[in-house]
């Protein structure tokens, strides 16, 4: 590397282009390289609901942001330091997010009259001063790529399509990244298409060399590896981590995993991943709809498998009745809901946290279920295991509330050892557990474990334990149909108490307050974890003491929640909804939890929440 290298602590890069430009792939590859390089990182893919809207339009813009740093990273970054804009639409739709002084790399080939007109630019923004507060690198990316591939026997179109690899090569050079891992990736991906393999490698290298050669770039940057705990690391998205968590849980429980599901964005990838894991005994059934998906899972659980169903908000609504049945049957069931923008079809590819109340209350009658929410892409793995633990130990549906940001976002993961994962061994009941009216040993499907209140799991094929269960109210112990008023009251209470007792086996709510004297608490749940921690970190830099806490269990809450909330003068809860969890906390503990909400389809920015903290702290008087 002959050009000077400037060291950076962190950088936020956003790749943006047409849906057909391969921006998700480019981002993914850069991420892998960064991860491999040892940076900590966090990513935020963002794409339209349409598959491939007409080229060059705003609707068709797809982007991928990543934040890499030489230290612990909590969010994908509030604003990009570098924007790679492959066409005018990409520039136009992303410019608003750029802070002054940011770097913009554009493909001038695409800034022709037609494309400019498509997005309503009368004059090219490259020419009219629009970009004067940015560092602009305007290069004819497409034509350089085509030129670089002159020798290759490919159509012009195919050559053009390699421009994302050129861009990746250039950025790799700019951030002093070796391109060898991406080369390996290309070799694997195009194994059967040698022409494209060669072209992509050539384009990648051309991009790298271009940086080195051209005078456009004065120096390169280096973001050093972040200090991380010892371990073997990989980069992983939330959906993949969640899928692996389910497989690991089934493995540790000694149960077959049966997924019944119906595709829906942003949950479909879990189906895609699991359908490739048959080697682990995983059975995936793509059902005719969401109801059938959960029905299949419940049927499988009845048969002694770990029944799982995956969906997003509208699908969760459809599953409601069947989840209610599972509550009544008291069978294990894991319902993964990857939240997206609502109501109705809403914003299918955007993130939101607005299904919490649906998860808790979206069924007829008093129908309690456990709810667990992962807090980061890698935590999706652990949260999935936790959901499976609760489902199997308590014989209950558990709703695992991920969201679009966690699902598609990625970060480095310190891969756990299999033996370190919790032991979830399940034992099926094989012997009678009571005495019948006739004085003989009998099986009572609704007798309960005194500790957990879980009922026995006796599966078909077990001789002597033949029994019938259903969704009509059942007599305590025997499980026979009962319309008795006292029994109904007792069973309703038992179902509620069983869920409440899960709190016996979950950790208390931990508080992060390094200064020890905070008077303001910011509390969150789910994917706001990163932004909240980032905000606290930022606010503390300016001397604003704040405590933060994060709820991973939404039902039941940790036992010490009341005590934690009452300890602070102000409690603020940021949520990507209109205050759903805050409502629950207020009702449960009569604490004036104040909502700070945003419903924008995007995660909070750390800086935004830091401001909230500062205002709150200052509102209480002297900053300590």
């Amino acid at each position, binding site marked *: 590397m002959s050009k000077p290298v400037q060291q950076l602590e962190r950088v936020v890069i956003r790749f943006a282009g047409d849906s057909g430009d391969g921006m998700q792939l480019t981002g993914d590859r850069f991420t*892998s390289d960064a*991860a*491999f390089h*040892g940076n900590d990182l966090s990513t935020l893919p963002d794409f339209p609901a349409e598959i491939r809207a007409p080229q060059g339009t705003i609707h068709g813009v797809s982007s991928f942001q990543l934040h890499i740093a030489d230290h612990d990273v909590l969010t994908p970054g509030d604003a990009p330091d570098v924007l790679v804009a492959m066409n005018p639409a990409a520039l136009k739709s992303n410019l608003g997010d750029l802070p002054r002084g940011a770097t913009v790399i554009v493909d001038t080939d695409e800034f022709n009259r037609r494309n400019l007109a498509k997005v309503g630019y009368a004059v090219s923004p490259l020419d009219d001063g629009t970009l004067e507060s940015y560092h602009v690198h305007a290069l004819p990316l497409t034509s350089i790529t085509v030129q670089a591939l002159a020798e290759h026997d490919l159509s012009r179109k195919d050559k053009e399509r390699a421009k994302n690899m050129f861009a990746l090569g250039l950025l790799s050079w700019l951030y002093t990244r070796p391109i060898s*891992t991406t080369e390996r990736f290309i070799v694997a991906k195009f194994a059967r298409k040698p022409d494209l393999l060669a072209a992509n490698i050539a384009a990648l290298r051309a991009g790298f060399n271009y940086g080195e050669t051209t005078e456009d770039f004065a120096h390169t940057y280096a973001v050093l590896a972040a200090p*991380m705990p*010892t*371990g*073997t*690391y*990989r980069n992983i998205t939330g959906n993949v981590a969640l899928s*692996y968590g389910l*497989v*690991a849980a089934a493995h540790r429980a000694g149960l077959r995993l*049966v997924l*019944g599901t119906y595709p829906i964005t942003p949950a479909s990838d879990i189906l895609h991943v699991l359908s490739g894991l*048959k*080697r*682990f*005994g*995983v*059975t995936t*059934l793509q*059902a*005719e709809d969401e*109801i*059938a*998906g*959960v*029905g*299949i899972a*419940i*049927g*499988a*659980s*009845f*048969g*002694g*498998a770990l029944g799982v169903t995956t969906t997003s908000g509208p699908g969760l609504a459809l599953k409601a*009745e*069947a989840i*209610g*049945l599972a509550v009544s049957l008291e069978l294990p069931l894991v319902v993964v809901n990857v939240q997206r923008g609502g109501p109705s079809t809403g914003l299918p590819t955007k993130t939101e946290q607005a299904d919490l109340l649906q998860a808790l209350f979206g069924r007829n009658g008093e129908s309690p279920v456990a709810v667990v929410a992962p807090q980061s892409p890698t935590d999706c793995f652990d949260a999935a295991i936790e959901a499976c633990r609760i489902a199997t130990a308590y014989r209950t549906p558990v709703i695992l509330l991920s969201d679009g940001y966690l699902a598609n976002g990625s970060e480095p993961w310190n*891969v756990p*050892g*299999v*033996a370190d994962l919790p032991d979830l061994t399940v034992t099926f009941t094989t012997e009678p557990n009571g005495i019948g*009216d006739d004085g003989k040993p009998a099986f009572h499907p609704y007798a309960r474990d005194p500790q957990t209140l879980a009922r026995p799991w006796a599966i*078909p*094929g077990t*001789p*002597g334990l*033949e*029994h*019938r*269960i*259903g*969704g*009509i109210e059942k007599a305590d112990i025997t499980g*026979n149909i009962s319309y008795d008023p006292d029994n109904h009251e007792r069973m309703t209470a038992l179902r509620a108490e069983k869920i409440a007792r899960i709190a016996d086996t979950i950790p208390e709510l931990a508080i992060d307050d390094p200064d020890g004297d905070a008077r303001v608490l910011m509390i969150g749940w789910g994917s706001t974890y990163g932004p909240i921690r980032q905000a606290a970190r930022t606010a503390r830099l300016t001397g604003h003491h704040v405590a933060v806490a994060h709820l991973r269990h939404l039902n039941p809450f940790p036992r010490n929640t009341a005590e934690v909330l009452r300890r602070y003068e102000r409690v603020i809860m940021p949520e990507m909804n209109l205050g759903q969890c805050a409502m629950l906390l207020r009702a449960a503990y009569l604490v004036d939890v104040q909502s700070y909400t945003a419903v924008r389809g995007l995660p909070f920015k750390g800086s935004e929440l830091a401001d909230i903290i500062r205002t709150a702290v200052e509102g209480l008087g002297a900053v300590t």
Partner: protein
Amino acid sequence: MGMPTMPSSGVAFVPRVTEGATALGRKDFTSDQDVRWCPGCGDYAILAAMQGFLPELGLRRENIVFISGIGCSSRFPYYLDTYGLHSIHGRAPTFATGLATAREDLSVWVVTGDGDSLSIGGNHLIHALRRNVNIKILLFNNEIYGLTKGQYSPTSRTGTVTKSSPLGSLDTPFTPVSVALGAEATFVARTMDSDRKHLTEVLHAAARHRGAALVEIYQNCPIFNDGAFDVLKDREQAAARILWLKDGQEVSAGDQVAVRADDGSIQVVPRATASPTRIVTHSVDTEHPSSAFALSRLTSDGTLAHVPMGVFRQISRPTYDDSVRGQVAAAVDGGGGTATDADLAALLAGRDTWTVGG
């Protein structure tokens, strides 16, 4: 792809009562629950037939599961001392699909009503049939919603006066056998509550079939739709109306016989006027469902003038659950047997790892 050769029977992998053990009897299949249907309900007869049939089937009781939806008929599982699941309205085939796929060692039966299976549950029914999941679906067709006190159902004849159709229902009813054939069913049959012998025969055929079997059972609801099938129960009338379907035999009723018409339909005409080359010989296992479909249309006018009874179609096609298990088994075998901790560790790590401090 390591698909195993197709097992030949619907109960191929279900453990049987071992030789020498005392055979099970009707009482072994009778649960301790009081039966709560109305006096005279056709469901009693079906239950009795089932309790007689199950011991004949020779399977271990604990390996039999009945799954139902909601409706009078759907209370069926409670009265059998097997495993049972009384689920929610219309969704029984979904639970059965999950169970049958997870467990090849079970004989899985679905009990459903005409509302449960064809109104709210129509979609699950047709998908279970096209997938050919190895489950046996018994559709108790009383042409009415019994449990909700007598509204017309998707099989009620047009013009049926009920609480919700005081001026007569307007919908054209489904012919369940036609629906099933249009949905790629591999086994479709029809029988009747009151004909214990025929019912039992059909249950045997269904149980033997490897794949989804739809059995329509005409069932009388004395409270809300009494006598809907009386013309088939009166000996004399039945003789003229019922066309017993027997594989390899002519389709006929008394002195009438089924003939294939020029327009592709099947008509029932006096034998005297039938051209011999036109007479329909029933064949349950023709690959093409067209003949079975044409037969199914004989009842579509709701008059019960000509009612084929028996197995319309029974063909062999890989079952969904066998195929699913086959793919999984092949993957497991191909990977060297049940996944170990090491296999899982390799999965979790993936191909692109790096090591810190190691």
